C-alpha cells in the first residue's frame, strides 16, 4: 500500500515513498517535498519502492526541483525504480533530475542540468 515517511539527519532529509504515487495523494507528496526544502539544505526523494507514478506525482517532483534551484538547495531523486524511470523517460525528464544511487550522494546545491531538451 501507499506510504510516505521522512528521515532527517545532518542537514538533509530523505522522503521515502512507497506504492503507487497518483492523484489520490500526490498533493501530500508535494507538500512534504516543499516542506522539507524549507527546512533542510539537502532533500532526496527515495523511489525504489514506487511501482507507479502519474503526471501529478511527477509534477510534485518538478516543483521540488524548481524550488531547490531558486533557493540554492540540494535536491535529487534517490534509487529510482524501473517503473518511475520509464515514466521519467517518457516525459523526457530523466536527465533533468539529479538521480543518485543513495542518500549520501544528494548534491549540496542543485545546479542547471547538464542536458536540456
Amino acid at each position, binding site marked *: 500500500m501507499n506510504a510516505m515517511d521522512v528521515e532527517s539527519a545532518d542537514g538533509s532529509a530523505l522522503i521515502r515513498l512507497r506504492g*503507487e504515487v*497518483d*492523484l489520490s495523494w500526490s498533493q501530500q507528496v508535494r507538500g512534504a517535498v516543499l516542506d522539507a526544502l524549507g527546512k533542510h539544505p539537502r532533500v532526496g526523494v527515495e523511489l525504489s519502492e514506487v511501482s*507507479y507514478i502519474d503526471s501529478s506525482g*511527477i509534477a510534485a517532483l518538478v516543483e521540488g*526541483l524548481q524550488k531547490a534551484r531558486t533557493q540554492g538547495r540540494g535536491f535529487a531523486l534517490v534509487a529510482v525504480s524501473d517503473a518511475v524511470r520509464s515514466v521519467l523517460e517518457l516525459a*523526457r525528464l530523466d536527465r533533468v533530475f539529479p538521480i543518485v544511487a543513495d542518500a549520501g550522494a544528494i548534491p549540496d546545491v542543485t545546479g542547471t542540468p547538464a542536458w536540456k531538451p
Partner: protein
Amino acid sequence: MNALAAAPVTEAGASEARALAFLADLSQTLAVSLDLRETIDEAVVRIADFMQAEAASLFLLNDDGSALECRVCYGPVDLTGMRIEIGQGVVGRSVAENRALISANAQVDDRVDRAADEASGFVTRSLVCVPLATARGPIGALEVVNKRDGSVFGPADAEILRLVAAPTALAINNARMAHELIEQVRLKREFALARRLQKSLLPKRRRDAFPVLGVNLPAHEISGDFYDYFDLPDGRVGFFVGDVSGKGLDAALLMVRAASLLRWIGKDGTPPAEWLARANDDLCRTALDGRFVCALVGQCERDGGNVHFAGAGFPPALLHRDEGFTEYPSGGPPLGILPGIPFEPHALELGDGTLYCFSDGVTDVRDAARRTIGEQGVRELVTRHAGSSSGPRLRAMLGELKRMRLVDDTTLLLVERPSSRGHEVLLERRFPARPQAMRELRAALRGALDGAGIESGLRDRLVLAVDEACCNIIRHAYGDACAGDIDVRVLSEGNQFEFRLLDTAPVVDPACVKPKPLGEERAGGLGVALIDAVMDEWSLQARPDGRGNRLVMRKRVEARNQSGDDNE
C-alpha cells in the same frame, strides 16, 4: 634427551610422514573419483595395506538408519551384506557412541561379536573400528582386523584410522548428495514431461466462432483437472470438465484415463446423463484405490442456444444472465464410487447468458487474508469481468485468481453464444470519477492488457495514458463537483486497440486540451503530453446528446503474444 629416547621419536616422525603422504594420496583419489563404488573398494584395500591389517571392512547405515550393513570387505572372509544392529558388537558400538574403539585382545573382549569367526573359522585377535563421521552424525564405520606382524592395534593405529576415515566419509557423503540432486533433477524432468502430456490432452482455443472456452491452471507441476470440447456428428458441440481427487503422479494418470474415457463415450453425442452413467460404470470396474472423479459433461448448439448437461459430484454450474445468477447442482455423486447410479440432467435455453463451470480450485482460491473466496467471491469475479468478450474475460479472471493464492488446480470453462463481432471487448466497466478509484482502474486495465498478450513495458505506458486521461476528466471536466462516473471500454480488433472514456461532466472545449512539449520543467500540462506520446491518436468530442464528453484513444500494437494456448 638421550639417544635411547630419541629413536622412537624419529620412528614416530617417519610413520607420521608416511601417514600424511598416504592420507594426501587417498584424499585426492577419493576427491577426483568418478565411480565412487570402485574407488571405495580400492580405498579399503589400500587402507588395509597401509594399516598392515589382515582384513578391513566398511559398513554403512541403511536407509532408515536402523542398522549397519557391510558394503565393502577386504580379507580372507567376505562379510559383504552382513547386518549389524546399532550398538551391537564393536562396529555397532563405535557408530552408536560415535568414537573409535580398540580391541587389543578380541578373544577375551565381550564387546566383540564372535559369530562371524565361528561361522568362518577366522580368528579375530585384534581390531580397531572408527565411525565415518559427517556433520550430521556417523554414516557408517571403518574396521581393520589383525595386524599382519601379529602385534596388537593401539591408540596410534586408531588415530591414523580416524584420519583415513575422514576423506572416505566425505567422499561417500558427497556422492550421496550428488545422487540426491540428480534424482531431484530427474523427477523434475519427469514431472515436466507429465505436465506436457497433460497439456497435450487439453483442447486448443478455437479461432472460429465457438460456444465453449476453457482454461486450466495447475497448482503444482501436474494437474488433476481436465476439460475438453469437440464437434459432434450432428453439428452440436460436446464439452466436459473434471477434477480427479488427490494429487501427484497417480492422480495425473487417472486424469488422463478419465479424460480419454469421457471423450470416447461423448464423441457420438450420447446424452449427458447416460454419458456419465457409462463413464461411472467403466471407472467402477477397476480399483481406483479410493480415488474418484468429479465431472460435468454437456452438449450445446453451435450458436450456444440449448444446453444439456449433467454433473457428477462437480461444483454447481453457474448461469449468469441479466445480472442474476442461477445455480445448477450436480445430479449425482462423483464417478468411480458406486456402479449403476443414475444421473439427473439439466436443460436450459442460454439466450444472452453464460454458463460457468468451475472446478473447486476456484472457490478454494485464497485472498490476501488467506480466506477462500467461496461462491460469493466467484460471483463477484464473474460480475467484475462481465463486460468483456469470452476470451479476454476468462484470461482476466484467471489472471486475477493467479494474483491470489492458488491452493488447488483451477479450471474454468464457459458456454455462451459466440460473438459475431469482429472485435473483442477487453474491458467494459464504470468507475467513480474519484482519484481513489484510479488504483482499481489501473489494476483492471493491467489485467485486461495482460490478457491480450501485451508486453509489460507497453502495457504500463498504456495504463499511464488512460490513467492520465481519467485524472484530467476528474480534475478539469468534473472539477470540484466531483460526483460522476467514467465509463471505460477497451476494444481490440486485430492489432488495433481502442480506449474509450465516457463522462457526464460539462462539455469541454477540445481546443483547450493541447499537449505541452515534453521535457519541460513545468508542473502542469504533463498529462496530455504523456497521452500524446503513448497513443497513436486521440480525439475528444462532446457526446451526441450533449451530456458529457467522449475521449477515444487508439494504439496499434505490433508485437503481441497471441498463442492459441490459454493453459499454463
